[in-house]
């Protein structure tokens, strides 16, 4: 269970609600424009807008065209399933949130708790190719280019490809990308770096490397409260501690560990039944509770 995760969506919600209103007003008048909006905002480099109509992935699944209209469902559900897998993984210190506008873009933040990058809080965005899962591997771009051998000093893009040379459906999952992104900060790899300076420093002058890393971590922290790079109702936003908002939220997180369940199942007062003894496959094998006196 990841309390942070629930809070992050919760706290973002407030804001997005108001945004939504303006949004919805707009959309109401022209639903078609909505799909036009379904593209990635421009990002530094190599941005791939996902406005191409039918992607190979979806159209290939609807060979005879009869259920072509279901294609989008497959894509979105696949991404939803990927997200579910991420949640199941419970990667320590890694949080993601799909964007409001496109399931192909996920916002994330990673907290580094040990090692050279200790105290680092790095926001990033995951871009999933629109022909997922048959395309390339997802891209992961840090909001600020972290000083790291595998992070492009200009674009902030992490070299994901080296770990997923070929993206294989069924084998590769987005949580693996996230796990990889976390790992690079603990096990530093300098071969064929995107940031040769960092690589060289790490090899030759660890002290200098360390101080550069500290600077980089500080820089990232100093921009933590910046407006998100990509405007989106579900973008991850940091704000200074505001007791009026956060105290209560923290309290909730600490006291109700099971809260997400409860929320999710508010409407579900159902409970199943079982009298099967664990390990047994006989019905009614569970022993009767001893009679209270």
């Amino acid at each position, binding site marked *: 269970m990841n309390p942070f995760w629930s809070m992050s969506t919760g706290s973002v919600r407030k804001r997005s609600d108001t945004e939504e209103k303006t949004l*919805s007003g707009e959309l109401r008048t022209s639903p078609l424009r909505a799909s036009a909006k379904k593209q990635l905002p421009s990002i530094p480099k190599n941005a791939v807008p996902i406005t191409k109509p039918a992607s190979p992935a979806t159209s290939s699944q609807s060979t005879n065209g009869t259920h072509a209209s279901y294609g989008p469902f497959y894509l979105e559900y696949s991404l939803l399933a990927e997200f579910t897998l991420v949640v199941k993984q419970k990667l320590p210190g890694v949080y993601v949130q799909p964007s409001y506008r496109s399931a192909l873009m996920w916002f994330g933040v990673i907290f580094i708790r040990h090692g050279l990058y200790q105290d680092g809080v790095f926001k990033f965005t995951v871009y999933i190719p629109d022909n997922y899962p048959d395309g390339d591997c997802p891209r992961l771009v840090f909001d600020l280019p972290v000083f790291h051998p595998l992070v492009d000093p200009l674009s902030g893009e992490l070299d994901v490809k080296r770990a997923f040379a070929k993206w294989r459906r069924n084998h590769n999952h987005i949580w693996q990308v996230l796990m990889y992104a976390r790992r690079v900060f603990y096990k530093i790899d300098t071969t064929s770096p995107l940031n040769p300076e960092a690589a060289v420093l790490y090899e030759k002058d660890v002290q200098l490397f360390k101080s550069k890393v500290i600077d980089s971590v500080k820089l990232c922290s100093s921009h933590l409260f910046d407006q998100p790079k990509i405007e989106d109702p579900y973008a991850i936003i940091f704000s200074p501690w505001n007791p009026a908002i956060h105290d209560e939220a923290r309290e909730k997180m600490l006291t109700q560990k099971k809260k997400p369940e409860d*929320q*999710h199942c508010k409407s579900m007062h159902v409970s*199943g*039944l079982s009298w099967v003894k664990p390990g*047994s496959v006989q019905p009614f094998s569970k022993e009767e509770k001893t009679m209270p006196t």
Partner: protein
Amino acid sequence: MERMSWLSKLTPRAGGQRAPRSASLQPPVTADPETCLMVFKNHWAQVLRILERRGSKPAPDDLSAVRNNTYQMLNLLAEDRPWGDGDKDRSQGDGDMACGPILEFVAAENLLERLLCWHLQGDFTEERKVEQLKLYEMLISQARQPLLRHKPVLTPLLRLLSVCAEPASAPLENSLVLLLNQLCVSVAREPAILELFFHSHTDQGPANLIIFSLLIPFIHHEGARGQQARDALLLIMAMSASNRAVAQSITDNSYFCPVLATGLSALYSSLPRKIEVRGDDWHFLRREDWIGVSSLVLFMNSLEFCNAVIQVAHPLVQKQLVDYVHNGFLVPVMGPALHKTSVEEMIASTAYLDLFLRSVSETALLKTFLRFVLLHRHDNMTILDTLVGRINSNSRLCMVSLSLFRTLLSLNCEDVMLQLVLRYLLPCSHVMLSQKRAVRDLDIYGKTAAKFLSLIPRCCRPESPPLPRERDEEPPSRARGHGSPGADAPPAPKPSTPSRLAFFMRQASAGPAEAAAPRSPGPPAGSPPRPGPRDEVAELDRNYLEYLRDARHSIDRCAWACRVWSAPYDGEEPRAPGPTPDPESPPGRPPGPPTPRTKKRGLPEEGAREAPGGPLGGDEPGAGGPGPEPRGGGTLVNGAHGAAEPGRPEGDVAVKKVRRSPQGEGEGGRGAPNGAPRAQPPGWEPLPSVDSLLEELLARVPAEAPGASVSIETFTEELREIEAEMQNGGVGGAPATPTEPPEPPLSHEEEEAFASFAALPEGDAGTGRAPPRPPDPLAQVVASPPRAVGPPPSQPFTGPFVSVLFGKLENMPHNSLYVNFLLTGLVAQLACYPQPLLRSFLLNTNMVFQPSVKSLLQVLGSVKNKIESFAASQEDFPALLFKAKKYLIARGRLDWAEGPGAVPALRRTDTLARSRKPSLGELLLRHANSPTRARQAAQLALQGLRDGGLHPLGPPARHGEALRVRNAVYCAVIFSEFLKELAAIAQAHAVTSPFLTE
């Protein structure tokens, strides 16, 4: 649970009966205690004069004088209160025995006792008893101080009660119950008094709660009296929860539990044996169905009472009652009832069992019912297997059975699922060895969904619209929807975003208000006007999002409920039972089913399979199915015969055979339904012999119930009757009901006509053209339950339940519309279970099964082929299809119009009896697990009906051909929707929130 809430009803009632005792109330004018005492003494002096006049019989004048004076005195006594207790707390006085002046006087004079003695000496007529009871009732209910703790009050009261123990006239019983009820209310307020009751020696003997034993005879009474008695008893039960001594006295020294449980038996025996048929779509008992049947109301009252007792009573009482319900009602009465020989009785008892299961809310009681269903053997077969077999029958029995299984599945009970399906899947013998690991795979790319959707028959696809589509229609959601298709992310609670909604708004607005409301905060400006009928029909092609939403909801619900299960059933845990613990499935490859079973069933089955091929093939195109299954018509469906073909002559023959000799040696193997496991796995509770239990029960009850001998005797009698019946019934055919058909050998044509007729959609009723249900008793004949038999030796077997369902599914084009609704709903319900074993078996299309194991996909494929070949052979199929959709939708809407609030709610309790007019809509709406399909069908206009009630598919002909066509066309509609539903379920499984299962 809103199922049975006795206590909530009870509490206010109990309190309400009591006169207000708040101190703030103005005491009567004669408030001065001194004066009151004076007056009281004065009255007493007058009474005393009469009382002391010994010897002579009291004159009538004396009687009325005593009566009047007593009345005044008791009123004063009621108003009496301890000294200084004026308007302060009463609690202070509770500690000591402080009492008011009048009470003191009463005690000193032993006044009440003397009064009663006087009455008893004389001719204590019923009238006078009633008078006395009423006086005490008034006294107890209005007293301003605790009276019962004072012996001088309590002793005469108990004596009076014991005098009234004999059964008597209604007025006396009414007063008695009222007084007892009042006593219970007082005792409930002051449990300490209970001790006094124990220690007070009465004619009833010591530790025997006289209140209690006096109340018991009234348990099953109807009307207010019974209700008061049950309420009162329930108060005592509630007290027992915290007082083991009370609980023990109830279980050891009273016949409460046996009377209650055997009373169910007695009441059951007076239930209608036959449920009046109201239309072809009727398939389960709703409240409005039974509320008018007094015998059923009586039964349900008592069952509700059992439920309530178990809810509040001490575990000792709980356990005893549950045991008695099992051994005194379920086993001796329900068991035989379910095995009655006449179809009508089978239908009735199945529907009753379903009703009971839906009504019981207490886990302990439910457990006993389920244990009975799952484990009890009647005629060497578990009830469960018998019931499973009946799905295979024709007609209403099938529908009632399907409803029962819908109820069972909706319980999300591990034990049920284990017995029905999971234990057959546990050995994983149905999959190729290499595939075993794939059991847990989730299909995250929607491949399964794509497969299911690709099975929508060509003739039903939107691309080939029944009529040229209007051009102004927007293209299907593909173009607009790309990148936007949305279902709300589960963990990320995205609000339904306007952009997402916009794409589906048309659909929502076309739907019933309820469907649109929850997710559309506001329709887009200028929400489109209600579409014409053509559009409405076209809507059916675009309802996928709703299926997704429903699937999501159902799976979440199910996953959440199943978190209490003992194991994940993911192919590893729990392990399939090894050879030692379970001789039934020997290990090794292929493990297969138990050998004894296969030997017995497999062989006759082979023979049986060859036979029916011929007579059928000719005029039922596609019946044998050019399915993907190479073996053609008579293939095994996962080990069992895909029988269920209505109208197979052999089917009925088989039934008759079975009826004649359910236990017969020769036929046994053949007649045993569906490869039910015979050997009872070890460790199952061996049930004591019914007879001995019953005898014990009966022997015991009257002995302990002197006061209630009459009612108990009635029970005994009735029980004997039942016993006798059950003996007759068990041996076959003896008490054939008058409705039993003579069963001449049937010609093929007859069979065919019957098959189509029995499956005739009821739809016409609403249009006023309903063909009266013919008296043909054959319609009630079971087709062939015991036909589908176990697998040939050494073949993996996925269990009788799956076999029967698949067999029935394969036969979809020939099933009636209603059967198909229930059937597809049940399969969808099954598909929502999150256990990987089950999920992979039904929904993983990549899984490679053993050759002999048919997959759901294969079954559906064969249905698809049947429909397509039917469509090809039927020139006007597109038009028929269009009409069928329109009609289904119209029927649905009619019902929505009637009462949108009266939607499914399996456990709805408060709806008043509605029109009994059967309507398709009702059926649709009660299709519990697939609200969408119902909703879709309900979406389109009343058009059809307004148009003058056209029946879409021609006049309601009895002609076999017309009915065959009708069934097939309806099937095409249902089948396509079913595939969408399954596809949505498959997709939703991949995104189940991990929070639900953790």
